[in-house]
């Protein structure tokens, strides 16, 4: 890493999923990128986390979570002053158009269906963040 990159602020990605395996997997998928990854265990936790950090560049969120689900979380983010423009990717194993449509309706920018692979995650993230893409 050269000095110029080092002095630049790392881009921050928030991952909200109640499964620790998924959190680890997404973190792992983005490990080769110079990103700062923040994780949250549900929508409520995620809201709290982003309220504590000044800058969030991308949010990756599951739909089915306890306490506050993905839809409600996205609505909250879109309704907030601070983060309403942050791109949001839904990561879900809910099949079917319905939840996809609903997700987009409440303000998500992209939708990844499980089972997903590391490359797909990286690709989707690269649409929104300035990251180096691995050669395919």
């Amino acid at each position, binding site marked *: 890493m050269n000095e110029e990159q080092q002095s630049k602020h790392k881009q921050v990605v928030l991952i909200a999923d*109640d*499964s620790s395996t998924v959190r*680890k997997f997404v973190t792992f998928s983005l490990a080769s990128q110079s990103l700062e990854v923040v994780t949250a265990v549900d929508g409520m936790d995620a809201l709290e986390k982003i309220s504590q950090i000044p800058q969030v560049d991308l949010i990756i969120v599951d739909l089915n979570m306890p306490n506050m689900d993905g839809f409600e979380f996205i609505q909250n983010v879109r309704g907030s002053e601070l983060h309403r423009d942050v791109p949001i990717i839904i990561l879900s194993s809910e099949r079917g158009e319905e939840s996809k449509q609903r997700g987009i309706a409440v303000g998500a920018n992209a939708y990844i269906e*499980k*089972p997903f692979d590391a490359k797909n995650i990286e690709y989707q993230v690269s649409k929104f963040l300035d990251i180096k893409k691995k050669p395919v």
Partner: protein
Amino acid sequence: MSVYDNLVGMEEVLDEFIIETIELLEAVNEDLVHLESDPDEELVNRIFRAFHTFKGTCGFLGFTQAKDLAHVAEDLLNQLRNGKLQPSGAIIDNLLASSDWFAQFINDVKEREEKVYEIDPLIEKLKASMGDGAAAEAEAIAADGAHEAEGEAIATDGAPAAEGDGTGNGQADKNEVCIQRLDGFLNKIETELAGADQQITEENAGQLAGQFSDLQLLCSENQLPTIATLMDYTHQFLVAVEKGKLLPSAEGNVVLVEVLHWLHEVLDDGREQAELQDADNSTLLEDLAALIHGEVTSAAVSKKQGDGAAKGVKAAAGGQTIRVDMERLENLMNLAGELVLSRNQLGQAYSTLAAEKTADSSMDNLDQVNNSLGRITTEIQEAVMQMRMLPISNVFRKFPRVIRDLARDKGKQMELVLIGEDTELDRSVIESISDPLLHLVRNAADHGIETPEIRKAMGKPETGTITLSASHAGNHIIIEVSDDGAGMDAEKLVAKALEKGTISSMEAESMSYRDKLNLIFRPGFSTAAKVTDVSGRGVGMDVVSTNIKKLNGAIDIETKVGQGSKIVIKLPLTLAIVTGLKVAVWDEEYIIPFGSIIETVKLDTSALTKVEDKWVIRFRESVINTLYLDEWFSVPVDKDKKDQEYYAVVVSVAEFRYALVVTGLNGQEEAVIKPLGQVLGRIPGIAGGTIGGDGKITLILDVPELVHRMGLG
């Protein structure tokens, strides 16, 4: 290509998957057993989410069969979630079987084994439950003809029976389901209240309010609008208490009890007439309205609201955890131990210096630093210990499932009561206590609790109770496993042992009551005619005793024929720090861990006699083996000294008792156990050493090994 080839480089993710799945499975087991007796929406949601997570994670890791099974289970749970199905015994059975399958599967993943599993029958069963709940239940019972009694047990234990899959099977079924759900809510509310001495408090009001809100919903859904209104009023009243707008009061408590009482009457009428009728109780409504409007003064309100806000913050901040490698914790623990020793030495050095030097400001400073270092060290040590502490619920949580399966299997009715689940103890102790406890609980269920027929004939309640409790007593934890079953007959045990050749008739004659009961801990001794397949791994009571011994613990039996048994286990809270009694053996000192000590007595050496080359002493009706510590450790004895006083320290090793003879009792000592190091290696009967404040090393006795080495164990 193996599924694991695709996961190369992802070991971390795979390990996380294993940990998460195991944790979720434990919760699923617990929740499923709970769900059977108490159909609760949040429970279903939690179980649903677990299988949903399995579906997702197994999917992207490439475990196709696991994903498929999780998918079907998820679908079934979805039907439970939206009320299309009720959790019948058969459905719970199938979901538990799925959870068992996942446990097996995750074990294989741990070993990186890829197998093709025979999962179609299980998937078929799950699908069948979905197709028609009632048919599935009937099928399960028919296939299991041997346990007809158990079918009744399910129907009476409060869980909704399978009739009525919610898709419009007729008014009678719907009525039945509604009554049972109402009954479930009432039970929950009453348990909640019983736990709070029938008092409404700010703490439980929220919970209760939630239940009444659910009740209101249930009533309006079932065309009971007048009852629903009363539920709504009760809900409003409780919310006011929760928010601090109303203070908890005796009047409020009474009205709530009356509401519950009245609901029971409505339910009873509903059962009798096979139709739940809407009913009106204007007196209660007026009482509630009066309560709701009689708000407290504004000063009290603002104070209460302040409290509420503070509580909210606390709840939000709590519950964050990270996982730490055990090895790092061990290391920190050792360092904290070293720090304690250095602190002690510093304290000693300071005292010496203070005695020589006149006080001046630099000495004052040193004194202060010394004091604060002492305080901080103690706190660090406690904090590190606490990090290793886990609540015993980690072990207890397995047992409801065990009891449920056993009850269904044996056609028995039993209830497991858990007390003191929050009691914390060292992780290493938790791990070692898990199997012995499991065995004791199975034993109580298998051999202790009688069949409903026998219990009824004896005038006992048909449902047997097994109680598992944990509590702290000083530096120890006391765990009790008790049952209200058949109890044990000491004489029968002796007869059995004689028959098996475990003891000789001469031995039998000299046995005390305690000794006779302790026979159950002998290897190869089992009170049941045949070993049942319940335990599955053939652990006997002797293994329980061995494990407890390893932990420096003691075990005790209390039993009464026809009334039940109680096994009491006493264990040290941790294995790293020992509180013990410092004893003198002529010019040397040793520490005997308190965990082993029953009592100390001044010894009249003439009471000692030699039997077959070994010293014994008569102690509280028992003859117990005795050993002179000076003989064993070859301590120089001052033979000329007359009137030397002797003491016997009576110790317990699992169920056995021994006396250790010493020459003095020198008080309590808290010691961090240090291994003796490579040069000395293991010395039989010595657990390790500890360094005192004066730098002197004192040896700590390993009592179980000591008696074993002496050939007494």
